[in-house]
């Protein structure tokens, strides 16, 4: 064999060997001196989380939540965005209990669409509930009611809210992750997060009573107290001219309470049949908006 080639080959291998030795010793040395421990499971758990960083879990984002999970401080089910499968997967990975997975959704305490609730003025400005609310409380006759300018629908990152044809937000339960964004944005505080089994529901926040309330909105709670009388003691009370349901007694709730409500402000939410009003509730056939 050619001597030059042999020389070349050997010097190459030698050089690389020396280089490899040098570098690896350097790294090994650095490894000893500079190593910082980080639990690799954090990455793994984080990759199982939805990466929406929505904060619904109460942590500052998905990674902090992952860290808290590893430390065992929180239960996986607190992430309301993940699907049940995902949560089980995380729980399995960590070998912990997934926690309580009760579906909770956002619910709206107003039924005053444009066809039943009167406007007292014509609002002309930024199309946003927040914006309208700072102008004299907004154009709506009922100053507690939904302004219908869709701030909630806009902030919902999960597209769970759409506006119906009367300008009322409708929550699609399946998509709602209970992230509370809509709760925070609504200037009238109409949304709250409720477990799905809270089926008896007062869809009104109007603090006026009787005709004054009904004048502004045909489906307002008039504080007539029929629901209170028809339901078990203490389940429903009237406070500030509004029916209030004590959900600690949710087990006692039934459709009966809604039956005699004259305006249909109190309703029963059924999984299959949707919103069910009482039989004596005023029929609303109007489709178009009320004039100002």
């Amino acid at each position, binding site marked *: 064999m050619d001597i030059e080639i042999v020389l070349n080959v050997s010097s190459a291998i030698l050089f690389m060997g020396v280089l490899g030795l040098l570098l690896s010793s350097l790294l*090994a040395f650095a490894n000893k001196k500079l190593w910082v421990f980080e639990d690799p499971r954090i990455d793994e758990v984080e990759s199982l989380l939805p990466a929406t960083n929505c904060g619904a879990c109460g942590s500052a984002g998905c990674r902090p939540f992952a860290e808290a999970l590893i430390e065992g401080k929180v239960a996986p089910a607190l992430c309301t965005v993940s699907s049940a499968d995902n949560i089980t997967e995380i729980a399995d990975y960590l070998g912990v209990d997934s926690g309580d997975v009760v579906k909770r959704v956002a619910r709206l305490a107003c039924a005053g669409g444009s066809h039943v609730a009167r406007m007292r003025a014509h609002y002309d400005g930024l199309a946003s509930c927040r914006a309208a609310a700072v102008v004299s409380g907004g154009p709506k006759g009922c100053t507690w009611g939904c302004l219908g300018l869709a701030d909630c629908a806009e902030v919902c990152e999960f597209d769970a809210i759409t506006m119906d044809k009367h300008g009322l937000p409708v929550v699609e339960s399946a998509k709602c992750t209970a992230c509370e964004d809509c709760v925070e944005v609504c200037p009238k505080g109409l949304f709250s997060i409720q477990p799905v089994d809270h089926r008896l529901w007062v869809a009104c926040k109007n603090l006026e009573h009787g005709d004054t309330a009904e004048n502004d909105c045909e489906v307002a709670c008039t504080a007539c107290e029929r629901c209170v009388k028809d339901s078990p003691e203490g389940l429903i009370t009237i406070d500030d001219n509004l029916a209030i349901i004590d959900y600690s007694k949710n087990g006692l709730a039934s459709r009966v309470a809604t039956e005699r409500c004259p305006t249909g402000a109190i309703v029963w939410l059924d999984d299959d049949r949707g919103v069910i009003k009482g039989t004596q509730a005023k029929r609303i056939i109007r489709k178009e908006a009320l004039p100002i």
Partner: protein
Amino acid sequence: MSKIGNDNITWGTFSEGLWRDNPVFVMLLGMCPVLAVTNSAINALAMGLATTFVLLASGALISLLRHSIPKQVRIATYIVIIATFVTIVDYAIQAISLDLYNALGAFIQLIVANCMILGRAEAYASRNRPLKSFTNALGMGAGFTIALLCLGVVREVLGAGSLFGIDLFGPRFEPWVVMILPAGGFIVLGAWLLLFEWLKQRKERLELEAAAET
């Protein structure tokens, strides 16, 4: 997680890189050669093949050695392995055609630094059996090559009026020089991405409408 532990080689193992995780269009990896050498279709093809070779060879080797490489030196090791194959390709191309070699410039050597290759080594080859990572690398390489061709073809046709060096429009055609320039590279890739995004959104919209109808 689940896809890592799984040992089955499926169509998905291969096709992942072609479309769903296309290294260029979806993951935006290895951008430098993508933009730098795609001013003609032939360069794009050569670069694509060269990269694919390196991807395959290094992927296979790393996958073979995956259990014996300590964590702390893995990057260094991977890089040395990759660099070896790149050097081999480099000399091979020089031997095949000096002109091609000159056209591709330093970018053959820069395959070493192509983020995609190291990324794949890290994410796939080091965690999967050789055959599986080989299959995946083949898909990735093919995806990469196709993406390069997408760019190369557009840029060459508009920028030089030719395709694979064959004149398309006759001598009076006015080439759009910008397409061959760096700016053109960015813009053409941007345009491809726009096109894909548009198609994707249109598909989603149609699906939504179809769902609404039923």
